[in-house]
C-alpha cells in the first residue's frame, strides 16, 4: 500500500521542482574531500538560478556542477584548480566572489576607500577646528560694516 502512496507522490511531483540540494548519492566516501567539495560548492553559482550557490540549489545544472567538482577533486585537483577549471569553462559568472580585476576594482576597493576617505575628511575637519575654531573666526572690516548695516536696517 505504501508503494502506491509513493508512486502517486512521484507522479504528482513530475514537472514540479524537487526541493533538495545535495543528494545522498553525490556524497564522497572520503570525508575530507567531501568537506572541500562542500566549501567549493558554496563559492560557485548555479547559473540558471537567481543568486543561489550550487550547494543550495536543487536545479539539475547545480547537481551536474556538484558532481563535476567532486570528480575534479577525486582526480587530485587543488581547490584553486577546480575553480580555475570551472571559470575557464563557464566564465567568471560562475564565481560568487568575483576575481579582482580592472572590471571589479571599484567593487573590491570601495569599502576600504570609503572608510579611508571618510576618516581623512574627519581628521582634516578636526584639525581645522583645532587651529582656528569655527566659532571665533574674525570678521574682516568690510564684513563688520555690512553686519552693521543689517543691524541698523533690522532696528528701523
Amino acid at each position, binding site marked *: 500500500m505504501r508503494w502506491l502512496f509513493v508512486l502517486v507522490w512521484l507522479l504528482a511531483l513530475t514537472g514540479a521542482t*524537487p526541493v533538495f540540494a545535495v543528494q545522498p548519492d553525490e556524497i564522497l566516501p572520503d570525508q575530507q574531500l567531501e568537506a572541500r567539495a562542500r566549501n567549493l560548492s558554496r563559492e560557485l553559482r548555479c547559473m540558471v538560478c537567481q543568486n543561489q550557490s550550487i550547494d543550495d540549489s536543487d536545479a539539475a545544472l547545480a547537481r551536474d556542477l556538484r558532481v563535476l567538482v567532486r570528480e575534479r577533486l577525486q582526480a587530485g585537483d587543488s581547490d584553486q584548480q577546480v575553480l580555475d577549471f570551472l571559470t575557464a569553462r563557464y566564465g567568471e559568472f560562475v564565481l560568487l566572489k568575483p576575481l579582482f580585476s580592472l572590471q571589479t576594482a571599484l567593487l573590491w576597493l570601495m569599502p576600504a576607500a570609503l572608510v579611508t576617505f571618510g576618516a581623512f575628511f574627519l581628521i582634516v575637519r578636526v584639525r581645522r577646528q583645532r587651529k582656528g575654531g569655527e566659532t571665533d573666526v574674525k570678521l574682516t572690516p568690510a564684513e563688520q560694516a555690512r553686519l552693521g548695516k543689517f543691524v541698523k536696517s533690522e532696528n528701523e
Partner: protein
Amino acid sequence: MIAELGHYALVLALGLALIQSFVPILGARTQDPVLMGVAGTTALAQFLCVAIAFTALTICYVISDFTVANVFENSHSAMPLIYKITSVWGNHEGSMLLWVLILSLFGALVAIFGANLPLTLKANVLGVQSWVAAAFYLFILVTSNPFLRLPQAPFEGRDLNPILQDIGLAIHPPLLYLGYVGFSITFSFAIAALIEGKIDAAWARWVRPWTLAAWMCLTIGIAMGSYWAYYELGWGGWWFWDPVENASFMPWLAGTALLHSAVVMEKRNALKVWTILLAILAFSLSLIGTFLVRSGVLTSVHTFATDPTRGVFILAILATFIGGGLALYAWRAPTLKQGGLFAPISREGALIFNNLFLTAACATVFVGTLYPLALETLTGAKISVGAPFFNATFAPLFIPLLLAAPFGPLMAWKRGDLYGVAQRLLGAFAIAVIAIVVTFTIAEGGSVLAPFAIGLAFYVMAGALTDLVERTSLFRAPAAVSLTRARGLSRSAWGTALAHFGLGVTLLGIVFETQWGTERIAEMKPSQTLSIRGYDFTFAGIAQRDGPNYRELTAKFIVRNGDVVVGVLEPSKRSFSSRDTSTTEAALMTRGFSQFYLSLGDPKPDGSIAVRLYHKPLVLLIWLGAVVMMLGGALSLSDRRLRVGAPKPAKPKTALQPAE
C-alpha cells in the same frame, strides 16, 4: 460592486493627496493657518480612503470573488481563511496597496500625534509626505490596479504561490513595509527642514521617535523574514545575501546610522547636515528596495526590458524623489547653520565612528547588489556577487563597529577619556578573554578565528551591560539600592544597553550556527536510525494526508536521547495541484536555544527517502538578538524626553494591525 468601491476610494485618496501636496505648503509660505490646517484633515481622510480600498480588496479575497483578476490570479476557494487574507499582499498589486496603506497610516499618525509640532513644520511634513503618496497612488492606478475585473468569471482561482502560504507571510511584509514606509516620515521631515531652511536640536527630537519606530519594525521584519526563509525554504540557511534581502538590509543600516547621528544632533547640535542626508538616504534606499523587488530588474535585465511599464514608472518615482531630494539638499544644505565642535575622543566622536562604518557597510551592500547589474548594462560582462563576497567584505567593516559599541555609551560628551573608559570595560575584556580560552579548550572543529568571534560576542554583551551595572552599583550596593537606582535610570539608557546587548546575542548565534552546526545527509529506509549530536532519529514510516488545498507526504521520525524518547518529528512535502508545485515543510525540534532541523528529499520507489538532518547550535539567538534590539528601541521610544516637548511617538503596536 465592492471592488469598484475600493477603486473609487483609491482615486479619491489620490485627489486628497494632490490637495495635500500643495495647499499646506502654500499655507506655510504665506503663514496662513487655515491653509496649513488642511493637511491634518486630508491626511486623516486619505488614510480612511486607502483603508476602505484595502478592506474592499480583502473582502474580495475572503469571499473569493474571482471576477476580480487579482483575486483570480492569487487565491483559491479552498485556501484557509488566514491565507486568503494574507494573499491580499502576497502579490505585486496588493502589496503596493499595503505599501500605500501604511504610508497613509503614518501620515495620519503625524496628523494625530503631531499636535505640538510647529504649525509650519507639520504642514510642510504632511505636504511632502503627500507627494510620495500621490506618486504611489498614481503608480497603482495606472500600472498595478488590483481592482480590475475579468470579462468572464472563472470557476476557480489560480492559488497563491505555495511558498507564500505560511504564517510568515502574514507578518513579514507588513512589518518590513512599516519599516520602509516609516522612513518616509523621516524623509518628509528632512525635506521640510530644507524647505524651511531651519533645523535645530528640537527638530532632531521630533524626528527621533519616527526613526526609532521605523527602525524597530524594520529590525523585527528582517528577523522574521530570515526565520521564515530558514524554516520554509528547507535547507536551513537564514541569510543568503540575496538582493531582495539586501534591499531590506540597506535601509536598516542607514536607519541605524541615522538613529545614532540624530542623538548627536539632539544633544550637541552638531552633524545637522549629515543627519539630513542620512534621512534622505534611508528613505531613498527603501524606495530602491521597493524598485528592486517590484520591477523584476533583479531576475534579469532582460525581463525588465520586456515589460518595462511598471519598472520605468517606479524608476521615475525613484529619480524624482531621490534626485529631487538630493538636489534640494545640495542647494539648501550649505545654508543651514553648521554648529558644534567635536573632539575625536568623545561620545559624539564615537557616534561619528559608528556612522562612518555603518555608512561604509551600507555602501558595500549597495555596490555589491547593483554592481553586476551596472556592469552588465555598461560592458555586457556578466559577473556574480554573492554571499562569499559579502562575507569577506562585511566582516572587516563590522568588527570595528562591534569593538567600539561598548565604548560609545560610556564616553562623556565633548571630552571623553579613552583610557578611563577602557579601564571601566576591564570586566568586559576579562569576560571576553575567559570566553576565548574556554572556547579554545572545549571546541572541536570550527575555524581558528571562531573562539575570537565568541570572545567578541561576549565582550559586546558584557560591555553593553557595563554602563547599567556601574550606574546601579550592582554587586557593590545592597540589592534594594540597586533596584531603586535601576528605576531611576532613563529608559533610553536601558534601551541603548539592551539594543547593544542584542547585537552581541545575534553575533553569538551566528558564530555558533556557522562554526559548529552539523549536518547529515542520508537515504533512509523505515526503521533505520540517523544520529547527530547524541540524538537518534528513527524513521518510522511514511503517510499521506490531505490538506485543504494540497496533499502531503509525511515522514515520521522518533527522536531519542539515549533511551529516552524526546519527541516525534514529522517533516513533509506538500504538493499543490493548482500550481503544480511542491514545498518542503521542515520539522524543527527546539532544545534550549538550539534546534534540530529535519527536511525531506525525494522518496524513492523502494521505500527509502532522502533526509537532511541538521543540528543548529544556539541558532535561535540570531533572531532572539534582533528581538532584544527591537525591545531596546521600544524602551528608548518610551523615554520621557521623547514624550515631553515632542510629538507623542507612534505606537507601532497599534500600527501592526492592517486595517480591517
